């Protein structure tokens, strides 16, 4: 048990530190004493607005979205036993993006965009799972190939929608495609989902460990493989859809965070899944803090920063691990 709690403790501390940093810096200057007063329920009205209405919700949203994407990626990699699997490669986020962009193109706002993105992600899930299933059995490689082709199809639809959309809607749609947390209003839906899914899948850690070794072995060891695989896929779709509706499509987190953690911590799902939630959240909180402060008042899309932070870290770990 100590093996599990030490890395998780470190990651938890890192998450809290990242959140604290994110709440204390911004383009406006809130002094440390004032910040402390605000967090204890006092402070001036302006500082209260800055910290409690703008920074805290955004930081928590970033944390939740990063956690959702990383856990979704980890689940996909177990399901497909393929290191390249992530929600983006499998067309989930493509479906969600098409749904959201269609709503934006129709001039809809807020809840309709979220619902439409969610519908797109579910449609993509059913499409990929159904087609890969086909008439015969499905194998991870078949599922992966179906997912990649469906993702390419969504990519083409996205390009088409951008090409025919009115010019005044383009900047919004583009920033959304690059991933952007400045539109996130309330952190609670993604946060609740992240916690719920963590509570749901962490008890399954042992079964997931067996499944990662292959379906035949898992079946031989008494795991009911098919229901478990469906559960994983639906959970991953739900996580991705929520992440995409909150912050647009932020690439890279779902692919890289699970791999980084596996390189450092080994491939025990009981540890990797909660670690992904914490590390993914931390990465996105840090990336978003940079995105909104680096060249303030101009704001950068957070997806750029996640890639710029994640790529060198990942390559370094991969190089070291050989």
């Amino acid at each position, binding site marked *: 048990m100590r093996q599990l709690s030490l890395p998780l403790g470190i990651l938890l501390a890192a998450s809290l530190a990242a959140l604290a940093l994110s709440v204390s810096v*911004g*383009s*406006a200057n809130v002094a440390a004493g004032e910040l402390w007063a605000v967090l204890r329920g006092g402070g001036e009205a*302006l500082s209260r*607005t*800055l910290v409690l*209405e*703008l*920074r805290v919700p955004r930081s928590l949203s970033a944390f939740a979205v990063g956690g959702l994407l990383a856990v979704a990626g980890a689940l996909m990699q177990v399901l497909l036993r393929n290191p*390249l699997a*992530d929600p*983006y*490669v499998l067309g989930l*986020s*493509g479906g969600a993006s098409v749904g959201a962009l269609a709503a934006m193109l129709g001039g809809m*706002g*807020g809840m309709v965009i979220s619902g439409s993105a969610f519908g797109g992600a579910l449609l993509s899930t059913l499409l990929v799972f159904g087609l890969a299933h086909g008439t015969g059995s499905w194998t991870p490689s078949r599922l992966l190939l179906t997912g*990649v082709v469906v*993702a*390419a199809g*969504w*990519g*083409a639809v*996205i*390009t088409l929608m*951008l*090409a025919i959309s*009115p*010019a*005044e*809607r*383009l*900047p*919004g749609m*583009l*920033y959304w*495609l*690059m991933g*952007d947390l*400045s*539109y996130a*209003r309330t952190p609670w839906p993604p946060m609740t989902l992240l916690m719920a899914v963590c509570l749901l899948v962490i008890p399954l850690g042992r079964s997931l460990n067996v499944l990662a070794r292959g379906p035949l072995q898992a079946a031989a060891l008494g795991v009911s493989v098919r229901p478990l695989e469906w559960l994983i896929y639906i959970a991953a779709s739900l996580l991705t859809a929520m992440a995409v509706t909150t912050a647009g*499509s932020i*690439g*890279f987190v779902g*692919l890289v965070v699970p791999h980084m953690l596996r390189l450092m911590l080994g491939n025990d799902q009981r540890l990797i899944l909660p670690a992904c939630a914490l590390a993914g959240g931390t990465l996105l909180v840090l990336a978003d803090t940079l995105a*909104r402060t680096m060249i*303030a*008042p*101009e*704001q950068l899309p957070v*997806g750029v920063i996640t890639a710029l932070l994640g790529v060198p870290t990942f390559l370094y770990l991969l190089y070291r691990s050989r």
Partner: protein
Amino acid sequence: MTTSVPAVPRLSAFTLAIDLACLGGAWRWPLVALGLAGLPGLSAMADGEERCVVDDRDREVCLEAPATRIAALSPGATELVYAAGAGEKVVAVVAYSDYPPEAQEVQSVGSHTRMDLEALVTLLPDLVIGWMTGNPPEQLETIEALGMPVFYIEPRDVEGVSSAIERLAILADTREAGDQAAAVFRDGMAALAERYADAEPVSVFYQVWDEPLMSINDEHLIGQVVSLCGGINVFGALPRLVPRIDDESVLAADPEAIVAGGMGEENRHWLTHWEQYPTLTAVARDNLFFVPPSLIQRPTPRLLEGSRILCEKLEVARGRR
């Protein structure tokens, strides 16, 4: 194996261009709300009482006291607030707010597509001028939720510009200056319309952008100016406000005059592109005209000067028949 997030990187250069075209200020708007806009209900009160105006989203915006700290969230809004005589009260602008020159000294709160809300909140504005189709609606909603009144603008025609100035002047309690500026613009445009009402029609292609090649239809404010000057926009009947077209369709339409803006104010290279087609009437008669985009692509009082230039160019084209 494919990479994640398809399509976006390849598109970004192109759409950045579109973005800049928007920043240049063409305030585009689909046909939907045109009929409903009507005239604003002006109901200004005497000092000390509440002042209310109807914004371009048809919502009533009321202020207890005249606005003293105004945030203008688009380059066009900045120009309109200055035109309304409330320039001294502007405390926040966005990128590319370059006119009048004093506006460049005001603190920027980022790009109009993504404002830095922290910076905006810190400036304590008591009136925010939002751009209906240019600013992200989520951010404007957040601004309102934080207790700052938002006045949405989206001038779609000549009267929309005058009325926006008048309404801003009511909110800022600068009616004298605002009403005068609005009247100068309204009368100037009316005089142009009268002068060219019976002019010989000239077929015109107005080029908004070069790659991809884009024009405007008759609903667009620039399209309205073309008509006002006695021009016939060859792409006026297309359904999209800012249609994307190709060289071939320009050759087929064979306009008598080609009018272009450009990235820079002095940049004419979009026009030289057409000289490779000597069979075009516009090229044969040397009717390739440049109108500075900042004078015609923003729905602000400077449009009067841009319209005068455009009308004069078309008059030149008539003289070359």
